[in-house]
């Protein structure tokens, strides 16, 4: 398998958010700013890579019938590790992301990759896949976060780009849906051309 393609597919062609439409809850929930989006994306990437790694390592030791529960335990462990680490070292980001950190465990991407990819492929492929998918997810969240932050408050990554009254709605729940809707439409259009 071409590892370069394996790595890059997650960004555009099989982008978990824009194309596969997975993990929409955190995508919408934490992207009020670009930094939150990036933070969430990286946290998810960590869980993805680690769970892909472990799953592909022990895939043959797991009987089929308990495959899913075992995967869930593995994923949940890594989620908890992320949770504790962030709580300790990046408390502000941890607070901003809130509920969505533990919810990584039910993010369809993570279980989906473990089940569909890591439990069938080699360790190396699985890690690359996890990294590609995770960074693709982070990429999508950062873009959405940046768009919302820019339209909603004139900033990107806290940097003031525009002054004056901006459209607060983009910082709020409705703006999340609207911005993501148009972003997906745009990506569809770009993917076609």
């Amino acid at each position, binding site marked *: 398998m071409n590892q370069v393609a394996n790595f890059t597919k997650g960004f555009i062609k099989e982008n978990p958010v824009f194309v596969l439409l997975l993990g929409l809850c955190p995508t919408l929930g934490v992207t009020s700013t670009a930094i939150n989006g990036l933070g969430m994306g990286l946290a998810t990437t960590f869980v993805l890579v680690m769970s892909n790694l472990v799953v592909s390592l022990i895939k043959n030791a797991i009987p089929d019938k308990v495959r899913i529960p075992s995967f869930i335990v593995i994923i949940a462990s890594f989620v908890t590790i992320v949770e504790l680490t962030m709580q300790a070292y990046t408390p502000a980001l941890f607070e901003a992301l809130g509920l969505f950190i533990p919810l990584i465990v039910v993010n369809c991407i993570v279980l989906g990759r473990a089940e569909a990819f890591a439990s069938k492929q080699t360790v190396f492929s699985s890690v690359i896949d996890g990294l590609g998918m995770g960074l693709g997810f982070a990429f999508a969240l950062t873009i959405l976060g940046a768009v919302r932050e820019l339209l909603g408050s004139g900033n990107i990554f806290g940097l003031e780009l525009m002054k004056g009254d*901006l*459209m*607060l*709605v983009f910082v*709020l729940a*409705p703006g999340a849906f609207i911005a993501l809707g148009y972003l997906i439409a745009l990506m569809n259009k770009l993917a076609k051309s």
Partner: protein
Amino acid sequence: MLTVSGSPHIHGDESTKKIMYGVVYAMIPAMLVSVYYFGLDALRVLLLASVAAIFFEWLIQKYLIKGPVTIMDGSALVTGILLAFNVPSNLPSWMVIVGALVAIGMAKMSFGGLGKNIFNPALVARVFLLISFPVQMTSWPKPQAIINGLTDAITGPTPLGIVKEGLDAGKTMSEITPELPTYMQSLLGQMGGSMGEVSAIALILGGLYMLIRKIITWHIPVSMLLTVVVFSGILWGIDPEHYADPVFHLLTGGMLLGAIFMATDMVTSPMTRGGQLLFGFGVGLLTILIRIWGAYPEGVSFAILLMNAVVPLINRGFKPRRFGIKPGVEIKTS
């Protein structure tokens, strides 16, 4: 050469264009009142909103959808004017343009254009603006007749705002009432508020015109206003010191604008009479709920949008009375 087409071979004289321009004519009294009380600023907002709405419709139809351009059918004009009616007359121009873009681009053309949208475009834009620019959308210039000269407008709260503030601060209605416009002032339009909502008489005139022209039917406005009167009347009857009276609710905060011009929007209201009655009831109920217990003093826009979302369900539940099928009998499904 003979034309061959299926029957029927004659057509009534209604057309989309006639209906849309009928709505525009019906809005003329309210437009005049808004210009009278809010001056050139009102004219600016009206023109800007209309032109921007038509322009965005043209732009999207021509370059994004690449379909036929139908900007002359009057629907974009109606949306533009209604949008202007729903904002304060001192709203900065660029916000008016954003509103037009949201109304036409987001609420209408994203769904495919005229007739396909779920939500009333002008109201989507209004709520979008209200949430986005809360300060500008809630500082209302006080109306002053244009004949008094073109001085800078003084801003002040809407009557509903006064009541909400007052009650929240623990005042009673009898303490608040002196600050409110009289019924006569409300009828004429001499109070703070969105451009199109201030004059009850102008709105009712427009409504009557549309009723006569059969552009709207009485069902939605009557059931909506009746619900408002009954519901707010009950609360007022129980405790007149803490709830405003029904007439006050009727005359303020875009209630009539909503009932006559917004809730009756054909595209976004139910298809059958029964459904329309339920729709009006829902709008009325939600309006009072939001006005009294919600944080926003004005509830009509939210209520109509919420009920817009229910319309597809209402349409499923309220079918016309079928000929030859007893009401209540299940329609067989295959």
